[in-house]
């Protein structure tokens, strides 16, 4: 029978005060600060590598935050019931976005190394860049970045605040308020994410353009979000949290969405490739030309197989999505592949001949990741892990795939 209430002990709704999860903010902060210091030391004489590595790491955690914001918005817009038990985790992950403004500072500082179009001398001798000056200029870049972060922070904090207020008041009007906000918020989200991906990734190669690029970054972000949510829910359960809250029915749905957006990513990635390959225009093909030769060819192939073919068959069976260790393996693999995707987008602009892994790639990931997880740990500790007074929480708790 589907409508049976399960008894859940109160403490499962809160982060334990000890262990990895309880100390996440301290551990994250320590790892982040140490890794940032090590990165700064390693970067002496090789600042360009630092900025590129930092950009990849920044984009990785930014995309997880943005994907989570999207999950919250689409969850309200579709009045979804099944996912209420994971919604708070997504709300908290999205609420890390304001902190990413701080981690964006190195990208701004490294603009001269990262973004060729910031060099006035180069622009003066480049007809194409002169025509793009109205958009690609440092002032606009900074203002747009501030606008993106202002809007993302506003939305992420708005939804977290309304949801937490419901924890205290159990007011069902807050649910309707969140649903009303979700529609316009999706519009704002779509536009800001698209232009942010243009500004921060596409303009690394300022001559190149692809109108589908925003959707490509979005698809990867949502894959990253569902992989991240699967990993944190499964590891939280290992720590004793949410053990009777999330059942294999919820993991089945997280797995289905992870699978679906993995396929969506492949669909968009191939759409971008097919049109550029077929149109064969030099200003568009430059992107794939560099990535389909030398050392990058192997990375491109690995991305096609590892980000699509393997997870497509691995995540397809129902039994995989319903078995926690297998789903955890699949989700962790997709996070790794999402990182490779971003590396593949950013790094060929620095190392044209092929991938050259640097220790900075690792230390920057630890720095950004540590600080990101420290913020997440703080947010998770400051309240319940589930919207405990959501009027439809029972529906979500007793959810079953039919």
């Amino acid at each position, binding site marked *: *029978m*589907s409508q049976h209430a399960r008894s859940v002990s109160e403490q499962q709704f809160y982060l334990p005060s000890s262990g990895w999860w309880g100390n996440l903010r301290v551990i994250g902060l320590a790892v982040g600060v140490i890794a940032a210091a090590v990165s700064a030391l390693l970067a002496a004489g090789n600042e360009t590598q630092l900025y590129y590595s930092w950009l990849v790491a920044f984009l990785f955690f930014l995309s997880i935050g943005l994907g989570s914001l999207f999950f919250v918005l689409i969850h309200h817009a579709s009045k979804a019931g099944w996912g209420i038990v994971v919604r708070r985790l997504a709300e908290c992950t999205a609420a890390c976005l304001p902190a990413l403004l701080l981690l964006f500072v190195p990208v701004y500082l490294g603009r001269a190394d990262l973004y060729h179009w910031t060099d006035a001398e180069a622009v003066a001798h480049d007809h194409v860049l002169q025509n793009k000056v109205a958009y690609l200029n440092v002032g606009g870049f900074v203002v747009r970045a501030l606008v993106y972060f202002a809007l993302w922070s506003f939305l992420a904090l708005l939804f977290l605040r309304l949801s937490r207020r419901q924890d205290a008041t159990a007011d069902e009007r807050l649910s309707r308020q969140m649903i009303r906000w979700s529609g316009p918020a999706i519009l704002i989200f779509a536009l800001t994410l698209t232009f942010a991906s243009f500004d921060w990734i596409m303009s690394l190669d300022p001559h190149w353009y692809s109108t589908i690029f925003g959707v490509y970054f979005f698809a990867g972000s949502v894959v990253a979000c569902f992989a991240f949510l699967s990993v944190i829910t499964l590891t939280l359960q290992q720590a004793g949290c949410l053990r009777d809250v999330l059942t294999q029915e919820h993991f089945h749905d997280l797995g289905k969405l992870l699978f679906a957006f993995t396929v969506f990513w492949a669909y968009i990635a*191939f759409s971008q*490739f*097919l049109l550029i*390959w*077929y149109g*064969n225009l030099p200003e568009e093909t430059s992107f794939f030309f560099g990535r389909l030769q030398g050392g990058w060819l192997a990375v491109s192939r690995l991305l096609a197989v590892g980000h699509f073919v393997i997870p497509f068959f691995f995540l*397809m069976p*129902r039994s995989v999505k319903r078995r926690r260790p297998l789903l955890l393996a699949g989700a962790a693999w997709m996070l790794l592949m999402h990182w490779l995707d971003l590396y593949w987008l950013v790094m060929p602009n620095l190392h044209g001949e092929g991938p050259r892994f640097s220790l900075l790639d690792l230390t920057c990931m630890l720095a950004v990741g540590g600080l990101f997880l420290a913020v997440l740990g703080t947010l998770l500790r400051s309240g319940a892990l589930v919207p405990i007074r959501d009027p439809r929480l029972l529906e979500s708790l007793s959810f*079953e795939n*039919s």
Partner: protein
Amino acid sequence: MAVIDLLVPKLPDTEVYGALARFPTTRALYRACEQVRDAGYTRWDAHTPFPVHGLERAMGLPSSKLPYIVLATGLGGAALGFLLQTWVHTSAYPLVISGKPLLAWPAFIPVTFELGVLGAALGAVIGMLALNKLPMYYHPLFRSRAFERVTDDGFFISIEAWDPRFDLDKTVALLRASGAEEVEIIPGERSAVAGGGAEVEGGRG
């Protein structure tokens, strides 16, 4: 006519189709399904006016074979689409299009994808019909007047006579013991001409 008959699944030609029992509520149906399942019957079914979640578990149904059919027909359709284009473009009618190689695989992917979807969709629909033994012109259960309530407020279990464990008296006794409000013996194909079920036990209301 003859070809179509080959495509229509047939039930065994027996004197008795099986036993039909009506239950008043989904709760009673769940319990009865569990008892029939635990008694070891394999050729039986439950009928309800609306989808009842979790009934497949009470019935002990194995998971459907349909996903494997869909996977096979989907991959088959994709392979067919890719091979067809490969054959046309490289051997049947080689033609250089916008300077691309003859085996321009990226251009083949949209058709490959669409035929994969088509194969999967056809496999899903036809496989579903085949696994449900459809289309069938007429079903012996329709001979029961009581069964008409299956579209309204009746919850039914039917046990087919060719189930290895089927025994007229014992099966009826089991259904009665599991809480049926009425149990009926449904005539099979051989005795079907006259029609009409034989009432074994009348309703209580």
